[in-house]
C-alpha cells in the first residue's frame, strides 16, 4: 500500500488540498492505520498553537488616545520622537557614534551619553545630550559646539512617534487659475537644547512634498533648521533636523503647496418688479478635495493667471525621491515667491478698500489687495473647511443696483429670436465699483406678476469685471418682445457699362420693413443688428440708425408698453464698378 507523505497529510489536516485529492486521502485513511496515526501526530503537534489562543484587549488608555488623535483636524501630521526608554538600543547606536566623534569633551565621551534623535519628544526629552546624558552620568552640560557637532542620523522607524499639538493658525491662499493653494501654518513646538527631529507626513493628501518649508518665527536667531530629509522606504513623510540653542517653546511657520482646493464665485440677482434695479448677492464656494482638513482657516482667493512649470497635483502624487525641497518665502507678509516665474512684489500690495459694508453679521467681507496683475481677496474671519466638503460663504449683498434692460435681435446669430440682456456697471453710481468682481455664474430671478413669488429668469456667466467696466448678462430668449424683419422689394438700378457695352456695375436696392412688438407692461429698449452682406452699402430710413462695423448697422428703438412699431428702410448695395465710386 502506498502511503501519503507527512506534507500531504498536514495539508489535508489544514484543508489546503483540492477536493479530488482530499477524497483520495479520505478513502485511504479508512483503511490505513499508519496514515491515521501519522495524521493524529500532526494534529497533536499543531494543537500546541492553541497556547496563543487567548483574547487580550487593548488598553482603554490606548483607545482614548486613538479617539483623541482622530479628533484632531488635519490629516497631515507633524510628529516628534516619543520619550526614549523603549529605544535604548537606538540610543546606544547614537552613543557609539558620539564616542568616535573627534573633538567632543571627555565628559561627554564617558557619560554614557546620549545623542539619539530618538531620545525624546520635541521639546520634552529630546536634544542630543544635555538632559539625559547629564542626568545619568552626572557630567557637565555639553557646549553648544559639542552638541552641534553630533548631528544625528535620521531615525529609521515611524512607529515610535507622538503627534504634536494641532496647528495654531492656518492661512489658505487659493489660486484658481491653476490648481494650486499655498498653505501657511503656524505651530508652537517645544524644543530642547541641541538637536531635534521633526517629522511631517502627508499621506492621502495632495501636498507637494518638494514645497515644504519650515522656519522659526520666534527665537529665529537661536534655532537653525539644517536639513529636510526624505527617509528611504518610508513614503509620504519628511523629517527636519533642527538645532536649538535653548530649551523652550518656539513658534514655527510651515508653508507648502497643495492642490485640490478650489473656489467659485456665484451671484444671485433679484430684479425689482419694475425691472429697473436689482438686488445682488454673491457667494464664494470653496471645495476642499485636498485630503486635508483645515480648521479655522483664513481664506484668501487669488484672481489672475500664474505660470508654474508643473501641476501641484502631479508633484503631490510623485513617489520618492522627491527632488529638491524648499520654497522661498520672503516674509510673513502677503509677499509670496514660490517660483521665479511668478513673484509678487510686496511694495505693490496695498489695501484699497473694503468691498462692501453690511449689517448682517454672517456676511463675510472681502478685503481686496492688488498683487501686481493679480487680485487677492481675503474673506473676513475664519472658516473650517474639511476634506471632501464644499462650503458656501456669503460674500456681498448690494441693494437697488441700477440695471439696463436691453433686447437684442440679430438674425445671423439667433435666427428669429430676440434675446434679453441685462447690463450692470461696476461703478459707484450703480452702487458697486469698490472692487473688481471675480468671474462666476449669475442667476437672475424676477417677480411673477403682482405676487411676491420669484421666478427664475435666466443665468449667465461673467468674466472678471474691473472697476468702472460694464457687463452684460444674457438671460436667454425673450417671449414678449419680438422682432420680425420682412424683405418687401428688391430691384437693380444705376447700371454702368464698359467699353464693349457689357454691364460693369449696378446697385441692388432692397426695401425692408421690421415690425417690433412689445407685449411687456413696460417700455423696452430694442437693439436690432442688420447685416448688409457687403462692405459697400448705404441705408436710407427715418429711424435712428448707426453704423456698427463695415458690414453691419443697427437700430436702437424704445417701444412703448403693449405696442407695435414698424421701421422701414432702404438698403442699397453697390456692385462692380459702382463699388469704386
Amino acid at each position: 500500500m502506498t502511503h501519503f507523505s507527512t506534507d500531504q497529510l498536514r495539508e489535508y489536516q489544514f484543508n489546503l488540498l483540492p477536493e479530488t485529492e482530499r477524497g483520495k486521502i479520505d478513502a485511504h485513511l479508512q483503511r490505513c492505520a499508519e496514515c491515521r496515526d501519522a495524521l493524529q501526530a500532526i494534529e497533536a503537534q499543531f494543537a500546541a498553537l492553541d497556547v496563543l489562543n487567548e483574547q487580550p484587549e487593548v488598553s482603554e488608555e490606548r483607545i482614548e488616545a486613538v479617539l483623541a488623535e482622530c479628533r484632531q483636524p488635519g490629516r497631515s501630521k507633524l510628529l516628534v520622537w516619543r520619550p526614549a526608554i523603549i529605544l535604548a538600543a537606538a540610543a546606544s547606536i547614537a552613543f557609539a557614534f558620539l564616542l568616535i566623534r573627534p573633538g567632543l569633551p571627555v565628559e561627554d565621551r564617558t557619560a554614557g551619553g546620549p545623542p539619539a534623535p530618538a531620545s525624546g519628544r520635541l521639546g520634552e526629552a529630546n536634544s542630543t545630550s544635555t538632559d539625559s546624558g547629564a542626568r545619568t552620568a552626572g557630567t557637565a552640560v555639553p557646549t553648544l559646539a559639542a552638541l552641534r557637532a553630533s548631528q544625528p542620523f535620521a531615525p529609521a522607524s515611524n512607529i515610535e512617534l507622538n503627534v504634536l499639538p494641532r496647528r495654531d493658525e492656518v492661512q489658505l491662499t487659493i489660486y484658481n487659475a491653476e490648481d494650486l493653494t499655498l498653505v501657511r501654518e503656524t505651530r508652537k513646538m517645544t524644543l530642547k537644547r541641541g538637536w531635534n527631529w521633526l517629522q511631517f507626513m502627508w499621506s492621502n493628501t495632495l501636498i507637494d512634498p518638494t514645497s515644504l518649508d519650515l522656519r522659526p518665527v520666534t527665537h529665529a536667531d537661536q534655532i537653525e533648521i539644517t536639513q529636510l530629509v526624505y527617509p528611504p522606504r518610508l513614503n509620504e513623510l519628511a523629517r527636519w533636523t533642527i538645532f536649538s540653542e535653548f530649551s523652550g517653546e518656539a513658534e514655527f511657520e510651515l508653508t507648502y503647496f497643495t492642490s485640490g482646493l478650489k473656489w467659485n464665485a456665484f451671484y444671485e440677482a433679484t430684479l425689482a418688479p419694475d425691472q429697473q434695479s436689482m438686488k445682488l448677492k454673491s457667494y464664494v464656494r470653496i471645495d476642499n478635495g485636498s485630503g486635508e482638513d483645515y480648521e479655522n482657516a483664513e481664506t484668501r482667493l487669488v484672481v489672475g493667471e500664474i505660470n508654474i512649470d508643473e501641476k501641484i497635483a502631479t508633484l503631490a502624487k510623485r513617489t520618492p525621491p522627491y527632488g529638491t525641497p524648499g520654497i522661498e518665502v520672503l516674509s510673513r507678509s502677503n509677499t509670496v515667491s514660490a517660483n521665479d516665474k511668478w513673484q509678487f512684489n510686496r511694495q505693490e500690495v496695498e489695501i484699497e478698500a473694503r468691498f462692501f459694508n453690511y449689517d448682517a453679521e454672517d456676511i463675510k467681507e472681502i478685503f481686496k489687495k492688488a498683487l501686481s496683475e493679480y487680485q487677492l481677496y481675503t474673506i473676513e474671519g475664519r472658516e473650517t473647511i474639511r476634506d471632501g466638503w464644499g462650503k458656501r460663504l456669503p460674500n456681498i449683498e448690494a441693494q437697488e443696483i441700477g440695471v439696463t434692460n436691453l433686447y437684442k435681435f440679430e438674425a445671423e446669430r439667433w435666427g428669429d429670436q430676440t434675446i434679453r440682456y441685462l447690463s450692470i456697471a461696476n461703478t459707484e453710481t450703480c452702487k458697486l465699483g469698490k472692487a473688481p468682481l471675480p468671474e462666476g455664474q449669475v442667476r437672475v430671478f424676477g417677480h411673477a406678476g403682482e405676487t411676491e413669488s420669484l421666478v427664475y429668469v435666466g443665468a449667465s456667466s461673467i468674466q472678471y469685471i474691473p472697476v468702472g467696466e460694464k457687463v452684460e448678462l444674457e438671460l436667454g430668449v425673450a417671449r414678449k418682445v419680438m422682432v420680425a424683419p420682412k424683405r418687401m422689394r428688391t430691384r437693380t438700378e444705376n447700371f454702368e457699362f464698359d467699353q464693349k457695352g457689357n454691364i460693369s456695375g449696378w446697385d441692388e436696392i432692397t426695401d425692408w420693413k421690421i415690425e417690433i412688438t412689445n407685449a411687456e407692461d413696460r417700455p423696452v429698449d430694442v437693439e436690432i443688428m442688420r447685416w448688409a452682406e457687403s462692405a459697400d452699402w448705404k441705408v436710407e430710413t427715418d429711424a435712428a440708425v448707426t453704423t456698427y462695423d463695415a458690414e453691419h448697422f443697427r437700430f436702437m428703438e424704445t417701444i412703448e408698453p403693449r405696442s407695435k412699431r414698424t421701421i422701414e428702410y432702404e438698403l442699397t448695395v453697390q456692385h462692380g464698378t459702382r463699388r469704386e465710386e
Partner: protein
Amino acid sequence: MEQSDELLMEAYRDGDQTAFPALLRRYKSGLYGYLMRMVHNSETAEDLFQETFLRVHQKAHTYRTGARFKSWLFTIATRIAIDSIRKNNRSPETQPFEIEQTDPAGTPDEQTAQSELRHRVKAAVETLPPKQRAALVLAYYQGHTYPEVAEIMGCSLGTVKTHMSRALKTLAVKLPQGGLR
C-alpha cells in the same frame, strides 16, 4: 438590535462621530489579539492597533458602501503589521522584553511547562516570514476562511494556500513533537 460594522462605518463616513468609538471598541479584542499574534509584543501591538484605526479614520471617506468592514480593517492592519515586522527584522535590538503570561490556576510545574511551551510556540511563529505569519494567524487564530484571507491579504487563493503550506512546514520542524504535555 446591534448595528452591523458596515452600517457603523458608513455612518462614520457620513459624519456620525459616535460610530467610530463604537467600532473601535468592538474590535478592541479581535484586532488587538490578531496584532499580538503577529508581533508578540503588547506595546508594539497597541501602536499598530492605534495606527490601524488612524488609517481607518483617515480613509473613512474612501470606504465603499457595502464593502465588508472586517475584511477592510484586517487588510489595513495586516499591511501595517507586515511593515512593522519587516522594520523590526532590520533592527531586532529594538524589540523590548515581554513578560510571559501564564495560567495562575496551575501548579508551579504546570505553569513552568506552559510558559516554556508558549515561549517555543511564539518563537516558532516568529520565525515565519511576515506573509506566512499573516496567513497562519488570519486562518488559524482569527478563523477566516482561505478566500477571506486572500481578500484581506490582497492575493490569490492559491498564494494564500502556498503561504499557509510553507508556514506549516516550518512550524512542523519548530513545534515540539508530541504536542501539548
